[in-house]
């Protein structure tokens, strides 16, 4: 769980950097034929020279031998998104289904659920998935989007560098440094779905080389389209945060940052329901509180090596009608990147994480024992060899010990071939694991009348193993030349030991009752095949169009009873997803941006006993903005314009439908 993707991308990808770029100033400048050619040209001629462009995002992609997409700050700002989950709709191959106003199913390459667990999510290198079920509570992942520098998404395994849970993808959310967020910024918006939101940020300097920012934000989200029922999914969240960055002349830097949030999330249905057992009733509000503090030190130890040390503490508290959950996480991480000679770049690191979790069930739900301390210790090493100037091989492995399933090795081999300057072909084979969670190890719930004899009991087990993936990937990227940018990735994944629920032999418990145990086992296998395509056409500087398509075919093969129908996950992700975006700079400082998405049906979901699923849908967002006066930007945004409302994900009693909506926003100081 790991590391700025920046470093990862650098290491898996940009070894050429060491050969050519990394510290070119230090090398004596060899006479460059092109420079003298260019100097002979007149200004007129110079403005007519065709160039290859290096945009910041594309530059980071480099010749990375992985399916990486970077969502930039500008793309987020010019989308209709008001939250990170919505911004992820822009990424091909990522599925985003909004189940209620504040619950999301976000997945990469299949296995969608509101507790999607085969995805690693990092916020400024801090892991934000919960060891409770290895998914992410997206409702509390709040950002001032103006200060998000980029969201990097790797589809497919990233486990060698980032560690377990990076099975089907890694999402790394990176905020801007304090230096990049100087001065006063404020925004306020009002609308039909996000009823009101406001944020203020101020950035200043400390001494010669230090920068800081502080910010605060509040958001109030309205209920989705739910019809008459006693519950509602509106929510409120307040968030304050701060960050400081110091840079020294020799390239060392120190970052300290932290957040605090508090909010209330309305739920449409209880988080845990057992048919035949009474659950919580009335309005189902979850109180959420949390905070974190992170420190990072980076130092360039020589012209060809750098080190990074990072430590964080994270605390989350959820008071859910079904349980009370407290989690404290302490994580320390060290890594070094070093060039060995001209042809190799080695990156290695060690890390340790301590998680103290207390989960007290209310009524139905229970973990046994309620409190647990779990550790995770890991080390990794990865070497990138430049075989020829155009051919790079990256091999590495992660070795990790966790308190759930013991030792896990996650190796990978990747090869990249730069066919010509802007074109890269790559292929990879990797193994990744999804380690067990507290739910799978410690759960203890009576699923039939607890007073009856015999009683059916859902039981965790220490014997539950990690789920395993062997992934084969291939990709092509034409990355530098505009006006056309193309990125294609295809994969074949083979899964083994996927979670299943199995009824086992009855036993008599100490109270003399017969218990029919239903246990978490690893008796389902599966395989998936898919393709993701992203194309950008930039016909003119003021008009950019971007199209994406993703195809996924997942087959699951239960070899046991699969009591909870985990095999139904094969239908939980749309088979086809299509996206089209357009960004236009109009005269007089207007911008007109649009985003069309079309998804095929969610065919079936484990909780949908009927097996009917949810129809596919097509939706359109439009944004008109004007930034013609001073430091002010006014925008008006329409969301889901094509239908009055549509369902996206989840069984009927648990979901709300997403309504057509609009909001207007004023931002000052961008």
């Amino acid at each position: 769980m790991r590391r700025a993707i920046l470093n990862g991308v650098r290491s898996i990808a940009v070894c050429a950097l060491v050969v050519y770029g990394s510290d070119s100033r230090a090398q004596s400048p060899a006479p460059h034929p092109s420079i003298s050619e260019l100097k002979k040209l007149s200004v007129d001629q110079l403005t007519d020279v065709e160039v290859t462009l290096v945009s910041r995002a594309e530059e980071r992609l480099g010749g990375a031998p992985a399916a990486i997409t970077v969502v930039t700050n500008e793309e987020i700002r010019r989308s209709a998104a008001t939250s990170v989950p919505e911004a992820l709709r822009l990424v091909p191959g990522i599925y985003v289904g909004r189940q209620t106003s504040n619950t999301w199913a976000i997945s990469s390459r299949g296995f969608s659920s509101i507790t999607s667990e085969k995805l690693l999510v990092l916020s400024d290198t801090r892991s934000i998935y919960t060891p409770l079920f290895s998914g992410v509570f997206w409702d509390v992942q709040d950002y001032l989007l103006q200060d998000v520098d980029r969201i990097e998404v790797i589809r497919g395994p990233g486990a060698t560098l980032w560690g377990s849970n990076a099975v089907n993808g890694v999402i790394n959310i990176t905020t801007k440094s304090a230096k990049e967020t100087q001065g006063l910024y404020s925004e306020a918006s009002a609308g039909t779905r996000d009823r009101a939101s406001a944020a203020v940020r101020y950035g200043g300097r400390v001494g010669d080389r230090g920068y800081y920012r502080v910010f605060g934000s509040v958001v109030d989200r309205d209920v989705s389209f739910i019809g008459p029922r006693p519950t509602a999914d509106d929510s409120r969240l307040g968030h304050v945060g701060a960050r400081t960055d110091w840079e020294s002349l020799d390239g060392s830097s120190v970052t300290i940052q932290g957040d605090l949030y508090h909010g209330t999330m309305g739920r449409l249905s209880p988080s845990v329901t057992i048919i035949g057992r009474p659950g919580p009733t009335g309005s189902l509000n979850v109180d959420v509180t949390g905070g974190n503090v992170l420190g990072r030190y980076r130092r360039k130890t020589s012209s060809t090596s750098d080190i990074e040390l990072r430590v964080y503490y994270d605390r989350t508290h959820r008071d859910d009608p079904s349980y009370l959950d407290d989690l404290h996480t302490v994580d320390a991480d060290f890594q070094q990147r070093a060039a060995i000679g001209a042809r190799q770049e080695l990156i290695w690191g060690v890390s340790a994480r301590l998680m103290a979790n207390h989960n007290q069930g209310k009524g139905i739900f229970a973990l046994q024992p309620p409190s647990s301390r779990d550790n995770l210790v890991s080390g990794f090493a990865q070497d990138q060899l430049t075989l020829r100037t155009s051919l790079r091989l990256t091999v590495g492995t992660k070795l990790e010990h966790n308190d759930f399933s013991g030792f896990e090795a996650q190796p990978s081999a990747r090869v990249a071939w730069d066919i010509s300057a802007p074109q890269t072909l790559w292929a990879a084979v990797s193994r990744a694991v999804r380690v067990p969670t507290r739910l799978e190890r410690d759960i203890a719930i009576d699923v039939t009348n607890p007073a009856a004899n015999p009683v059916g009991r859902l039981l965790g087990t220490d014997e539950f193993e990690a789920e395993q993936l062997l992934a084969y990937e291939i990709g092509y990227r034409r990355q530098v030349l505009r006006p056309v940018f193309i990125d294609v990735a295809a994969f074949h994944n083979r899964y083994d030991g996927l979670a299943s629920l199995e009824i086992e032999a009855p036993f008599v418990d100490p109270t003399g009752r017969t218990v029919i145990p239903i246990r978490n086992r690893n008796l389902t296998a599966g395989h998936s095949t898919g393709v993701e395509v992203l194309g950008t056409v930039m016909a003119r500087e003021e008009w950019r169009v971007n199209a994406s398509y993703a195809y996924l075919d997942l087959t699951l093969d239960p070899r046991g009873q699969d009591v909870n129908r985990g095999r139904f996950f094969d239908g939980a992700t749309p088979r086809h997803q299509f996206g089209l975006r357009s960004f236009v700079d109009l005269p007089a400082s207007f911008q007109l941006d649009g985003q069309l998405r079309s998804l095929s049906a969610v065919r079936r979901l484990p909780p949908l006993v009927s097996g009917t699923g949810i129809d596919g849908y097509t939706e359109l967002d439009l944004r008109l903005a004007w930034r013609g006066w001073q430091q002010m930007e006014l925008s008006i945004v329409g969301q889901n314009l094509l239908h009055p409302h549509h369902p996206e994900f989840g069984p009927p009693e648990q979901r709300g439908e997403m309504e057509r909506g609009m909001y207007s926003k004023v931002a000052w100081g961008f």
Partner: protein
Amino acid sequence: MMSMLVAGPAPAQRAPFDEREVKAVFLFNFVQFVDWPSHAFSSAESPIVIGVLGDDPFGALLDEVVQGETVRGRRLTVARFRRVEDVKSCHVLFVSPSESGMYEHILTTLRAQPTLTVGETPMFTRRGMIRFVTEQNRVRLEVNIDVAKSVGLTISSNLLRSARIVSATRG
């Protein structure tokens, strides 16, 4: 953020040019098309200084371009600055995109100095003088003459002819 200075495509492939090469040559050309007021130089021998403020995207390119060059009897040198407060006696200043959050501060600090400010992000020419505009795989120029005039710089019509002109009072 150390060493994000980008490897270009393999140098064996020469055409088309890397945009940074073209921009570096532009910075050199500006020296030939701009007249500075005499107080911009402390003596008859002082060099013409091309500066980069913030993260330097050019690496060694800029040094190569100006190496051994003289313009109107003055040597050319390259200087790199971390903070705008350090910018003293600089004639052409490329403001790196890494400083985009601080344009107000930078351009306010420089408003009385005879420094030709050059940038490349969209709003730069509101208060800066020249912006590199990349369109259709070409590097074009956008010039705000009013800002240049206000500090006593004269830009030759030979340069302006191939540039898009904006004025301070407009977008």
